[in-house]
């Protein structure tokens, strides 16, 4: 286990190093002069530009810029936003609660939808419930997230008036209103995850259900509920966790779209603004943090296998 962990950690570190390189290169290929963006096209004298250039460290060779940047990032300093001149770290911390709450609710929704439906579909294959599951699963994968979001807004917000179509309330101000404001975004975000998890759960449950130990469990008079949850589900879980973990990584990508559609003041929207205004430090840090989250997620998924299935030994 320790050897495995060490190897896996080393791999993760290499990937992370590559990730920082890509993030850095991304910012290098952004066109437009960030100093010019800072002082504005008019009234910028050559001397003024030079001052800003030195201040931002843009006059140094690229590898020096990279190493300096890397050192600061490791120390927790993500730089200063070119557009708002605020600390990027502060900006992130300010916007993190919405995004985290949205992510958590999205995953909860996905699990609540995927597990019952996936298990039911595997127990009654080729019935109406299985068909419903398949249709939902295909829809989840095929529907652009912003389209699903619009349909939800149209039906549940504009027509029925059950949920707000935009805006956000902090959970510490009013917990219920906060969750209420994020229900539609969470569904739009989590639907893809639900769809793929459901599909995977169905097929791995179908495989497991024909195994002999399930027959044994039934033969010894175990309640069907326990047969399904304790024996079948646990053994079917490994591929499901893989899909779930990988998908949560992809979920983070969907944040941008969902936060824009529902005008939520989260990290996704901040990143889009950074793209539109060519705010290099914010974009760079955002891309970096997202990739970091995804990589750590993958590591956790790998480690979780041994918890689900004690037979797996990492040699």
């Amino acid at each position, binding site marked *: 286990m320790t050897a495995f962990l060490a190897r896996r950690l080393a791999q993760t570190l290499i990937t992370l190093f590559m990730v920082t390189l890509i993030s850095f290169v991304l910012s290098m290929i952004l066109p437009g002069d960030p100093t010019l963006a800072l002082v504005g096209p008019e009234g910028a004298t050559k001397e003024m530009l030079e001052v800003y250039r030195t201040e931002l460290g843009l006059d140094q060779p690229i590898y020096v810029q990279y190493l300096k940047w890397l050192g600061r990032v490791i120390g927790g300093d993500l730089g200063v936003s070119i557009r708002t001149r605020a600390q990027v770290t502060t900006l992130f911390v300010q916007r993190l609660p919405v995004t985290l709450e949205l992510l958590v609710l999205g995953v909860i929704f996905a699990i609540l939808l995927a597990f019952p439906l996936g298990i039911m579909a595997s127990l009654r294959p080729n019935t109406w419930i299985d068909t419903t599951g398949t249709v939902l699963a295909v829809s989840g994968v095929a*529907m652009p997230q912003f389209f699903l979001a619009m349909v939800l807004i149209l039906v549940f917000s504009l027509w029925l008036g059950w949920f707000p179509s935009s805006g956000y309330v902090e959970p510490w101000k009013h917990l219920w209103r906060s969750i209420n404001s994020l229900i539609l975004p969470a569904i739009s975000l989590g639907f893809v995850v639900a769809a793929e998890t459901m599909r995977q759960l169905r097929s791995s449950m179908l495989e497991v259900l024909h195994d002999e130990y399930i027959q044994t469990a039934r033969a010894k008079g175990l309640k069907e509920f326990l047969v399904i949850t304790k024996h079948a589900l646990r053994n079917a879980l490994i591929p499901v966790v893989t899909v779930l973990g990988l998908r949560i990584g992809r979920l983070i*990508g969907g944040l941008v779209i969902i936060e824009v559609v529902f005008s939520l003041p989260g990290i996704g929207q901040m990143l889009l603004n950074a*793209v539109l205004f060519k705010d290099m430090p914010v974009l760079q840090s955002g*891309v970096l943090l997202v990739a970091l989250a995804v990589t750590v997620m993958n590591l956790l998924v790998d480690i979780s296998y041994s918890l689900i299935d004690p037979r797996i030994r990492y040699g």
Partner: protein
Amino acid sequence: MRTKRRYSLWLSGLALTVLAVFVVFEPWVCPYDPLAIDFVPLSPPSLKNLFGTDELGRDVFSRFVAGTRISFIVGTVSVFFAATIGILIGLVAAYSKKLRALLMRMIDAIWAFPMIMLALALAASLEPGLGSVIIVIAVVYSPLFARVVYGQALSIMERDFVAAARALGCGAVRLLLTHVLPNLAAAILVQATLSVGTAIVLESSLSFLGVGIQPPTPSWGLIMQSGYRWLEQAHWISILPGIGIYVTVVSYSVLGDWLRIVLDPKQVTT
């Protein structure tokens, strides 16, 4: 199960054929000029305007048909380039032990970025427009192909006929192109079919966010974005093109799954 698959396959084939007709015969299928402001704004679907009109008074159906052309061009051309880049990387990584670690770690790193993030960051570095969207999607999708090609090529390289070709003095390029690549064709074709659909979704997402196709060119994502502001008064502007995207993607995925089964009879489906 068999008959159900038949139905969905026929329906998907039909849907894609109709859309292909839109793409090829766009000028004849469009009842009106997709850019012309000729009608009462925000009027609901009718016989005159099948999909209604948008906020400026343009015919949504004509814009949808014109958008089909843009979306299909972006989808197929970008996937073609993505496959080309991916095949190249995958083959080189499978053949050269020296470059393997570097290339595949690079692919892993790119893979760590959610597609839309990477696409956004790349889009920011290019002038927005049709060409940029194609480049962005091609780059973002290439790891997908690199992985498929790499994995399969590795096992094919172990086969006897490759050893035989090598023994006969076959060079690297010739070996890869005439002996290895043809054996990968099925896997690549399946991956490409599945990717065109999702590439169209990515294009529409980018256009929706304002970093893809630029107005006034009609693209599905853009039509939906402009309609989004009028959701309450005129939901048809965004909902009908949305259904178009949905049908397209489902059709491509049905087609891809079918190809997978037809091209690989050994594979068991559940």
